[in-house]
């Protein structure tokens, strides 16, 4: 009885987070049933995650931008433009991909810092400043691709980022070995970190969840990781896109939840005046968040260009809105100070699952847009309602 009560109260406290996972689960289950299991097939899941990558990294950056009460509309065409620059560096100048990629990321940071400058130093509303950036980079993209049109990239190393998979070492019963090993490592690391956190808390004599709940949580999360690993191992294993996406999530999750910098970002978002009076340099935080957004936009451009193996004149169109939608589905609040990295990634996966599932079902594009719009509105309504209840 006590066990059920504890579970209940945990659920109530975390309804927003759990709600999102449940929504994702329901969406996946529905599509799986409607497509006779095709949706959860190894190939489809692998494709789904790969096509989420370039939006997911944007959503991560966008979440932080929205957390500090700003917005960045320029990211779509920044991604498109920097993707084209990457293509020119690779094909036109013959610079190897391992040098091109850092150059592009640095350019992204520069662009982001410039946005930060307009917002923090000149006090231009971010909506306007980045709208200007959107127009400028759209023009810039057209200009650099004007003469050549679509630039085909022949660099295999670069193209692997969006299409390749990590090496398998060997196949075991048709499964991808390295993927299985990585999955297993991830589970072990997860269990180890949870247990050590718990031990530490007990050492400090803090409250911890009961042993039963703790074990259930461990088993549950491990099962999910194994299941995803197993599905992906059945196709070509982890793609480089998935690896990059996971790295971004892990790093940003750590930065936002464990570091002083992360705490300062949320402080600025929840009350900029109070943050300033607490000795936090609000402008510096604004620069960092926009700079990181620029870098992730560059990364998004790399992922997308590499996936298409070419830079096109329209690359990046509407990326920014997809990223904003993913961030809001993931629980970010425009009032500032609220929003998690894990939420952003789940939001991006939810939106991609909707597209993928509806494509499999042959739902028309017109209806797809409407349904995705409905889900976005529904997620935010759910958010507002649960927050009101607690407030």
């Amino acid at each position, binding site marked *: 009885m006590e066990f059920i009560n504890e579970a209940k109260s945990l659920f109530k406290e975390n309804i927003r987070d759990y709600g999102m996972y449940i929504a994702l689960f329901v969406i996946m289950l529905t599509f799986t049933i409607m497509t006779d299991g095709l949706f959860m097939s190894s190939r489809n899941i692998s494709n789904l995650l790969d096509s989420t990558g370039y939006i997911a990294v944007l959503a991560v950056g966008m979440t932080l931008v929205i957390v500090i009460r700003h917005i960045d509309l320029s990211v779509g065409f920044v991604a498109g433009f920097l993707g084209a620059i990457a293509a020119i560096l690779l094909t036109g100048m013959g610079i190897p991909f391992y040098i091109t990629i850092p150059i592009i990321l640095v350019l992204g940071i520069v662009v982001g810092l410039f946005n930060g400058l307009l917002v923090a130093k000149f006090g231009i509303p971010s909506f306007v400043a980045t709208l200007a950036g959107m127009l400028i980079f759209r023009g810039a993209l057209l200009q650099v691709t004007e003469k050549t049109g679509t630039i085909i990239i022949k660099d295999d190393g670069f193209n692997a980022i969006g299409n390749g998979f990590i090496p398998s070492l060997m196949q075991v019963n048709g499964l991808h070995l390295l993927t299985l090993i990585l999955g297993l490592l991830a589970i072990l690391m997860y269990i180890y970190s949870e247990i050590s956190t718990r031990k530490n808390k007990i*050492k400090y004599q*803090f409250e911890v969840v009961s042993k039963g709940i703790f074990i259930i949580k461990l088993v549950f999360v491990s099962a999910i990781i194994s299941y995803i690993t197993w599905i992906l191992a059945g196709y070509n294993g982890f793609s480089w896109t998935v690896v990059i996406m996971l790295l971004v999530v892990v790093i940003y999750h750590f930065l936002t939840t464990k570091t*002083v910098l992360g*705490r300062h970002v949320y402080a600025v978002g929840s*009350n900029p005046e*109070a*943050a300033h009076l607490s000795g936090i340099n609000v402008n510096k935080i604004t620069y960092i968040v926009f700079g990181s957004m620029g870098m992730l936009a560059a990364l998004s451009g790399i992922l997308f260009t590499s996936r298409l193996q070419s830079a096109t004149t329209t690359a990046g169109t509407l990326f920014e809105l997809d990223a904003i939608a993913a961030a809001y589905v993931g629980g970010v609040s425009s009032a500032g*100070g609220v929003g998690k990295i894990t939420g952003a990634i789940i939001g991006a996966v939810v939106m991609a699952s909707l597209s993928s599932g509806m494509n499999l079902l042959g739902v028309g594009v017109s209806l797809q847009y409407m349904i995705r719009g409905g889900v976005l509105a529904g997620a935010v309504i759910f958010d507002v309602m649960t927050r009101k209840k*607690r407030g």
Partner: protein
Amino acid sequence: MSENILEMHGISKEFTGVKALSNVNFKVGKGEIHCLIGENGAGKSTLMKVLSGVYPYGTYQGDIVFEGSVQQFNKISDSVKAGIVIIYQELALFPDLTVYENIFAGNEIKQGGIVDWNRTIAEAKKMLDKVKLDVNPETLVKDLSVGKQQLVEIAKALSKDVKLLILDEPTAALNEDDSENLLNLLGELKEQGITCIMISHKLKEVISIADKATVLRDGQTICTLDGAKGEISEHVIIKNMVGREIEDIYPKRLNKSFGEPVLELRSWSAYAVHLGRQVVKDVNFHVKKGEIVGIAGLMGSGRTELALSIFGNPKSYKLQGELLVEGIPKTLKHPSDAIRSGIAYVTEDRKGDGLFLIQDIKNNISAANLKRVAVNGVINDNEEVKETTEYKKSMYIKASSLEQVVGNLSGGNQQKVSLGKWLFVGPKLLILDEPTRGIDVGAKFEIYTIMNQLIEEGMSIIMISSELGEVLGMSDRVYVMAEGQIKGELSIEEANQESIMQLATQ
């Protein structure tokens, strides 16, 4: 003059358990200038809000009789229709609209739903003549000085056929010439038959202009003084304003020993660029180690501005003069500089710029000094919980857990979180701005107790307060501010309610 235009009988008003007004009786004769006087929080503004319908009929007890009949105002427009117009201290003008648009805002001259701008401008000119304001009605309000803006507000009131004009501290933000103009104008309006209620802290003004004066204290009417009988004098007003004895809610400190000055200001001035005026003028000031220095004064006297100019100047004033921390001259450009120099500032507006309301107690307490629980920029969660728990205990914060969201706490507990946040920084000098505003007596006592403990640990405190009782009960020395200047420095033996009020209302 014998007939009363307004009679308020037995007005009581409660805010969730706190009595703001209890059984107030207030009578205003037709055509008189009646001043309403009292300390901050005495209930003046609440009374006027009841009168003007901000608090609708039924949310208070008692009757409002205006021009002989009982009124039931449900909203502000009801009282305006009856001829009662209130002008607040913070003017309710639209700075980016023209003078004539402002005068007729909400009361537009229109024909078939379309505004007749020509007639509006012509009418506006008439109103401006009435208040003797010689400006082009097409000027934008933001281009006028505060004094002229005030006249525009009055012109706006006149355009509504006002019978009873209420002014809430009309001269608080005005310079002397503008104040005098305004007072003269009130005299002329009186001759035109307009009755006027004026809330004012400046006793000299009250004495020069009032026909009658009513004193409120702790939500009760103390007395109504009649100017014609020569009853209105500074001495009588102050006595009635502060009459209560200081209750024994101020815990005593036993051993008082003061060390070297922790902070010293020399010829310290601050100019607010966005306001276009000097907010702190030529202040000389010091606080010694182990001392509580009170800064008394009325709202708007420059106390908060002085504190901010010390605490890293977050409002970007233009500063002049010298600031010394423990004898060493310092330039503090950002609150973080001030924090590093050992200064902490607990704001008067804890909800506005003090706390992160959507975050929990733990995050709020650690916010200004995360370094304390972090290694190489990575926060040690467990250390953070452990250390902030100690502050939750020592600040007597009543909450179910550290994870409770601060926005859901009571005012007193919020204030204690705010205080805890700054003690977490480990300052040498703590600036408290209205430390007990809006909190109950129990929480007040706890905060005073904490203050005494801090002093015993060798900290110094600057306490800005509008509550005279608190200033007298807690301080070792008192500075009195008015108009951005320090009007006087009183030892605690010299200081009493009368001497402070006298300096503050100069």
